[in-house]
Each structure stands twice: as structure tokens, then as C-alpha cells.
């Protein structure tokens, strides 16, 4: 280093030695910061990808590819903002009874499990959202179908008969 040594030196003609500064720096804080940023970027990149639910609707242009479903083996589920109505069979028959439940795990989920066990493999769920239903309610019901592992379900628009049934029952 370009320093003049102050101590005059004891020996004459002795070589002046420059002091050796250590080349090592403490890198701990730098490494800390590096890993902190890595963690941040790793978490943000993986979390940014949203999850999706696949929904397949029937092809409207295809006419011949239709699967037959017996009405007695279907459960029509009608989600409303706070509650779920359901009935088995046709809405126009006098024996059809409308019932009401909620979105909790003891509500519609138990109902779906129950009907699936009773009806068997051909059990089909028909979802007809009421006019007051929120998008969330529909997704909740699709989710319940997935939880109860029902692959056979259809989304239809609500028909006047079903609406009449709700009105008549007064639930």
C-alpha cells in the first residue's frame, strides 16, 4: 500500500514491506440477501399459477350422441343464493317432493352421497340454477359433484315447471 511507515526502521537498508490487507470479505450478509430474494421469487412464480376446474358442456351441433337417462334415476338440484332445493324425478308429477338443504358438509353433500348409494351407478345429477343464484353457488355444486365422485352431471337452464314447484312448496 502507499503508506509511509512511520517507525523509521531499526535496520538500515532493510526492505520496506507493504502491509498485506486481507482479501477476504465477510460475505454472510450478501448470501443472506441472495437467498432471501431467491425465496421470494420462487414463491411468487409458483403461486401465480391459478388452479382451474374443467367444465365440459355438450356439443350443441351433434345430434346423435346422446346418452339416455331415466328420470327416476336423476336428482335435480337447484342452487339458490343461500340454500339448495332438490327433487328426484320429474317436476310435473304429483308424487315429486321438493326438499331443501344448505351448502354445508352435512347438507347437500350428505344428500348426494345418500342418493348415489341408493340409485347406484346410473345416478345423474341435473343442476338448474335459480334466478337468484350466484356464480359461487354453481361452482360449489360442481365441487360437491367432484367430492362425491359423481361423473354424471349436467347443467341446464331452469324450466318453468321447476320454478312452479319451488313456489308451490313455499320452502
Amino acid at each position, binding site marked *: 500500500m502507499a503508506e509511509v511507515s512511520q517507525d523509521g526502521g531499526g535496520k538500515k537498508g532493510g526492505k520496506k514491506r507493504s502491509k498485506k490487507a486481507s482479501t*477476504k470479505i*465477510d*460475505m*454472510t450478509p*450478501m*448470501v443472506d440477501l*441472495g*437467498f432471501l*430474494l*431467491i425465496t421470494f*421469487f*420462487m414463491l*411468487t*412464480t409458483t403461486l*401465480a*399459477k*391459478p*388452479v*382451474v*376446474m*374443467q*367444465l*365440459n*358442456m*355438450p*356439443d*350443441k*351441433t351433434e345430434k346423435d350422441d346422446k346418452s339416455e337417462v331415466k328420470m327416476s334415476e336423476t336428482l335435480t338440484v337447484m*342452487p339458490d343464493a343461500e340454500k339448495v332445493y332438490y327433487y328426484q324425478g320429474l317436476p310435473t308429477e304429483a308424487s315429486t317432493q321438493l326438499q331443501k338443504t344448505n351448502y354445508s*358438509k352435512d347438507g347437500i353433500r350428505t344428500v348426494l352421497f345418500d342418493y348415489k348409494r341408493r340409485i347406484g351407478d346410473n345416478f345423474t345429477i341435473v343442476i338448474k*340454477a335459480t*334466478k337468484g*343464484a*350466484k*356464480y*359461487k*353457488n*354453481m*361452482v*360449489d355444486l*360442481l*365441487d360437491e359433484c*367432484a*367430492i362425491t365422485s359423481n361423473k354424471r352431471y349436467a347443467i341446464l*337452464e331452469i324450466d318453468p315447471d321447476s320454478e312452479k314447484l319451488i313456489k308451490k312448496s313455499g320452502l
Partner: protein
Amino acid sequence: MPKVKAKRQSVSLDMTAMCDVAFLLLTFFMLTAKFKPEEAVTIVPPSSISEKTISGEKGILTISVSPEGGIFLGTDDKAAKDYMLERMANRLSVPVSAEMKKNYDASEIVGYPAGAMRQVLSVKPSDAKAKGYLKGIPCDSANNELFLWVSYAKISNPGLKVAIKGDANSNYKVFNQVVGTLQEQNINTFQLVTSPEGRPQ
């Protein structure tokens, strides 16, 4: 007898290699990270137990539904986005200036009636949002502009996958309209964007 002294070991170790690796990884993640684009509308998707992540190698067309029922459209395919503007402006015979094109490119989404296109694109995207120009794309039987936008995007890139991102509290009716519009174009597979939740036992 002299005491046996334990050899003292240095506590500082050479961190250069570790530092190198750390910064290499840091650079990699920084370069690959894509930041979430600023959304014109805040959408809280409903939760589901689904664990699939969004897929669409050839591009994704995202249709968002705001809590008020406004419909917004966005895509990550730049070419399809440009084509959509070109065809839509052509249809309405609105001349697109360089300024308007720039504002269109800067905004992530399309969300206004086509009649208001000139007005919306003449201001910056952030201003358009602040002034409340983004009212959503009309999608009813009388004036179905969503149909046009989607069909133009599909012409430009037939491999586009459709994702629907609806707010949990949006009305089901709007979702039904969107699905109906898409089914008219023979798009029957949708990906509903949801937030993850645990699977019940």
C-alpha cells in the same frame, strides 16, 4: 509436562461458492418470473378442491366476470390481441392511431362497448379505469359483442383455450350468457379459474 493445546480451527469458511450459486439461482428466477399484470377489475374467484393448474400451450383467452356482472376479455397471445383490435376497428370503421394502439397494447384487458372504443383508447389504461370507462363487453341477444371478440381471437389462433374467471358473487345469469355465447361458436370446454381449498376427508 507441557499442556496439550487443542488446535484452533478457523470459524470463518469460504462462502464464495455458496454466494455464486445463490446469485445464479437468483438471476434465473428473476428472469423467468412473470409479474401478475394489474387487473382492471378486482375479481375474487370462488374456491374449489380442484388441483389442476391452468393449461394452454398455445395461449389462453381469459373471460372475466366482475361482481357487478361486467364482462372483460384478455389474452396472452399478442398476435390474437392485435388481430382482434384490427378486425373490430375495421368493423366499426374507427381509424386506429398509433396512440390508440399504444394504449390498447398497454392494457391487459378489453372491457368496453365497441362504440366507446375511440373514447377509451384515447386515454391511458389507468385513466380509463379511473374515469369508469370500463363498463364491460355487451353480451346479450340484441348486441353480442363478446361473440365478435371471441370469434376474431379464434380466427387468429384456433388453438386458444378458454378460461372463465368469475367473481364468487357475480350473478349466475351472466356466466350462463357467457357459456351460451361460447357454445354458439362450438367452444365446449372451459376452465373455470378457482382458488384452491383443501379436499375434505
